[in-house]
């Protein structure tokens, strides 16, 4: 099934693939970083005492989680110009990825914070620690360990999701495959190379996630 697989064309288009890989990297790193900020803010709103903030965060999180990313991307891509906002496709894409991952990260962070047993918080209170001290010394050190592995899982999802930006013609890895297909009509060379490069990223992140799963989650000791 691979006879006639043309390695020379892959070599010829290597600079293009590397550029795509670089763009995928950049998009993913910028989006995950911004999504982390959005996620922590949304999680703060979700756990807040004010009903209004809580309501807004819940609407944001649930509406993102129950609609497809592609619809969200199109929403911004076709929607922002009608509001008179014209930004490059790549920024539209990063905006959509940021808001999408932010909602999932908010849930991950919330699960981390609520995983700290109530007894710990009560113990902190009765030791006379105030809210910020409790956060700083008791909740966060335990919550972060639980949060890191699923966050890396979300990073994997984000890298894969960034492939959808090819549909609004952002020049990332999948788009390179489409370019090679349309210029030379060699879909198998194009998409197997793209898939291979994605797999390389996946295995690196997966290794990191497994490692953090082993190292960072505190095992209760009796």
């Amino acid at each position, binding site marked *: 099934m691979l006879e006639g697989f043309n390695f020379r064309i892959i070599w010829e288009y290597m600079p293009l693939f590397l550029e795509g890989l670089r763009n995928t990297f950049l998009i993913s790193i910028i989006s995950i970083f911004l999504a982390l900020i959005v996620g922590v803010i949304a999680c703060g709103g979700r756990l807040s005492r004010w009903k209004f903030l809580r309501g807004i965060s819940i609407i944001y999180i649930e509406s993102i989680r129950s*609609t497809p990313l*592609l619809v969200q991307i*199109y929403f911004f*891509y*076709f929607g922002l110009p*009608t509001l008179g906002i014209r930004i490059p496709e790549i920024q539209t894409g990063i905006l959509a990825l940021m808001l999408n991952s932010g909602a999932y990260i908010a849930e991950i962070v919330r699960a981390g914070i609520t995983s700290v047993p109530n007894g710990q918080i009560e113990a902190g209170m009765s030791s006379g620690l105030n809210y910020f001290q409790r956060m700083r010394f008791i909740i966060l050190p335990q919550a972060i360990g639980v949060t890191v592995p699923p966050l890396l899982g979300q990073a994997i999802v984000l890298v894969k999701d960034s492939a959808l930006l090819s549909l609004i013609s952002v020049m990332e890895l999948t788009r390179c495959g489409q370019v090679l*297909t349309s210029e030379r009509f060699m879909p198998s060379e194009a998409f197997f190379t793209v898939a291979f490069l994605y797999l390389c990223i996946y295995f690196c992140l997966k290794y990191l996630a497994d490692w953090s799963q082993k190292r960072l989650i505190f095992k209760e000791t009796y």
Partner: protein
Amino acid sequence: MIADYFQRLIEIFPFFLKGLWMTAIVSCLGLIFGTIFGFIMGVLRSQKVRLFNWPIGIFVSVIRGTPFVVQIFIVFFIFPEWGIQLNAFSAAVLALTILGTAFICEIVAGGIKAVPKGQWEASASSGLSIVKQLRLVIIPQALRTILPPLVGQYVLLIKDSSVVSVIGVVELTRVGWLTVVRIPEGLMVFSLVGILYFVISYPLIRLSNGLEKKLSVGQISL
């Protein structure tokens, strides 16, 4: 102006319902086949037979490590080169089935692994054959851990079905895309698309959360 667009949007609303119907059919077929194959593969994977474990492991990593868009392009453009002719609809169902199989396989294998070893030993010493052990003892208990993430996976599959719009299946997202060309009001059109997805996904998300709460109650922790 906006009221005018809104009027036209209402006029073509049946078109959206048709798209919703297509989304429902494609994702339903995908998740039914995915569940069947996923269960078979998951059971095989949990048995730790070398012959199956290796290929299934590679299959699952490859599917989980590459973006769904790339998988769809491979199914749609490259399978025909190997002599498998597919129209857009069957390519979409096939791609969703492959995706669902890989993810459900992991869920099922994890659920079966979570059943205590004593149950295997007890059922084996009661003289049940391996098929009966699985059917009568192991799988009913494993379902408790399998069901909530399985329903969650269905939500993901329904959302991922939006991506099949790229190969020209006229489902909900594609309808939105076709509409926005004629009614240049991206926010409105894709809000409508989003709401329709929300109507299917949100109840399923609630169901998944409800199942998780309900099924974890009976779990006896030693």
